[in-house]
C-alpha cells in the first residue's frame, strides 16, 4: 500500500470539509478524485502533504506515517518528502529559470551537485517537451508550458506519489491537451498519482480508480467503468449528468 488514510477530518471554522475520509492507494495506481466544487477534493490532497493541517486522522505515505493527534515538525517534513505536488496555478518559483525550478530541490534536499542536478533537470525537461526552454523564466512561458515544468519539478524529487490539484483548471482550453498528454505518459510509467480533476474523459482514460467525493465524504469509488457506466448511486448519477456537455441543456 502506497497511501493509506484513516478517518481524516478537517473543519474550516464551523464548516466540515473532510468528514472522516478513508483512502487506500496501491503502488503505481492512478486515482482520480472527482466531485462538485466545495466537496473537499483539494483539501484532501493538501492535507496529504500538510499544506493544510487536518484536525484528526492518520496518514501513511511511502515510508512516513503521521498521526494528527501527535506529531512533530520532523514528521511533517518526512511526510512531505514522500510526495510532490502539482498546483492548479503552477506555482513555479518566479525568480528561477525552468531548469532551476527543477534543480533547486535536488541541490537543497537531495545533496546533488549542480552538475548532477542539471543533468536530471535537462532530462526531465526533455521528457515534458521543454528542453529548449531550460533557461527561460516562468513569466516567458505559456500556462501549459509552466504546468509542464511544474510536473517535471514534481517528478524530480522522485516521490512515492504525485499529487495533482486540478492541474488543467487554470489553463486556456487550447493548452489543456498538452498537459494532459504529459500526465498520461507519466501515468504509464508506474507512478502513483492522485489527481483532482474536472476532466471526466481524461479521468476515465488514465485512472485505475475513480473516487467520487461530495460534502467531505467519499460517496463512491471504483474502476472508471463501474463509476461512469454502472453506478447505481443517485448522488453520483446526478453529478455525472451535470458534468456531461449537454447536461445543462437537459435540465
Amino acid at each position, binding site marked *: 500500500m502506497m497511501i493509506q488514510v484513516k478517518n481524516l477530518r478537517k473543519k474550516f471554522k464551523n464548516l466540515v470539509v473532510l468528514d472522516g475520509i478513508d483512502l487506500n492507494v496501491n503502488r503505481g495506481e492512478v486515482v482520480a478524485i472527482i466531485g462538485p466544487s466545495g466537496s473537499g477534493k483539494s483539501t484532501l490532497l493538501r492535507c496529504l*502533504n*500538510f*499544506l493544510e493541517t487536518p484536525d484528526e486522522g492518520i496518514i501513511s505515505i511511502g515510508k512516513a506515517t503521521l498521526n494528527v493527534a501527535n506529531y512533530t515538525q520532523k514528521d511533517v*517534513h518526512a511526510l*512531505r*518528502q514522500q*510526495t*510532490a*505536488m502539482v*498546483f492548479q*496555478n503552477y*506555482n*513555479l*518559483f*518566479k*525568480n*528561477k*529559470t525552468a531548469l532551476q525550478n527543477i534543480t*533547486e*530541490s535536488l541541490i*537543497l*534536499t537531495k545533496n546533488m551537485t549542480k552538475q548532477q542536478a542539471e543533468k536530471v533537470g535537462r532530462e526531465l525537461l526533455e521528457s515534458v517537451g521543454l528542453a529548449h526552454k531550460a533557461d527561460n*523564466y*516562468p*513569466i*516567458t512561458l505559456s500556462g501549459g508550458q509552466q504546468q509542464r515544468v511544474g510536473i517535471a*519539478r*514534481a517528478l*524530480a*524529487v522522485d516521490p512515492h506519489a504525485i*499529487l495533482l490539484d486540478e492541474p488543467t483548471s487554470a489553463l486556456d482550453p487550447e493548452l489543456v491537451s498538452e498537459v494532459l498528454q504529459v500526465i498520461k505518459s507519466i501515468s504509464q510509467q508506474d507512478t502513483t498519482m492522485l489527481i483532482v480533476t474536472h476532466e471526466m474523459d481524461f479521468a476515465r482514460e488514465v485512472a485505475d480508480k475513480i473516487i467520487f467525493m461530495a460534502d467531505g465524504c467519499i460517496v463512491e469509488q471504483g474502476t472508471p467503468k463501474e463509476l461512469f457506466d454502472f453506478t447505481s448511486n443517485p448522488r453520483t448519477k446526478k453529478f455525472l449528468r451535470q458534468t456531461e456537455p449537454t447536461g445543462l441543456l437537459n435540465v
Partner: protein
Amino acid sequence: MNFDAQYMIGVFPTILKSLHITLLMAVIAMVFSIAIGLLMALITKNKIPFLSQFAALYISFFRGAPALVQLFLIYYGLPQLFPALSSLQALTAAIIGLSLKNSAYLAEIFRAALESVEKGQLEACLSVGMTKFQAYRRIIIPQATRNAIPATGNTFIGLIKETSLAFTLGVTEIFADGKMAASASLKFFETYLAVAIVYWVITVIYSLLQRVLEHKLSKPYTA
C-alpha cells in the same frame, strides 16, 4: 546681491574632507538596519510568540521617537544608567541610533514585501521537500527583495541625510565641516548651499546605482 561664487567653489574641498565619515555612518547603519529589520520582519510575519510582541514594541518605539531625541538618549542618556558606556564614541553612538531608527522603518517595509510574495511560492517549496528556512533563503526573500528595493532606497536616502544629526553629538562629518567653514568665513549661504549640493549629489549617485540594481533584479520578471 551678495553672493561669492568663487568662495563657494573653493569651500567644496573643505566640506568633502569628512565625506568618508558621512558615508561610513550611512553604510554601516544601513547594513545593521537591514539585518535587524529583516529579523524583525520575519518574526512579525511568522507571528513567533513573545518575539513578535517584542518586535511590535521595538518598531513602535523607534519609529515613534524623533531620530535626534534617540541619538541624545543613547549618547548623553545611557551613560548615566551604565557608566561603562561613558567611553562610547560619538560616532558609534550615532551609528547605533541611526541603525535602531531605520531598522524599525525597514522592518515594516520588509514585512510588506514578504507578504507580497504569493502564498503558493512557499507551498511549492514545502511540497518539494524544502524546509521553511530553505524556502525563505532561496525563493521568498529573493522575490521579496525586488519588491522592497524602492522603499528601502527611500529609507537609505533619508538615512544619508540623517547622518547630519550626528553633528549634534560632536561627530565631524560634512555638515560639521560646513558649519565650521561658515562660521570662519561668515558666508553662510554659499557654505550651506555647497553642503546641500554635496548631499544632493550623493543621493543622485545612489539613485543611479539603485536603478541599475532594480534593472538587474527585475530580469526574471520581464517577458
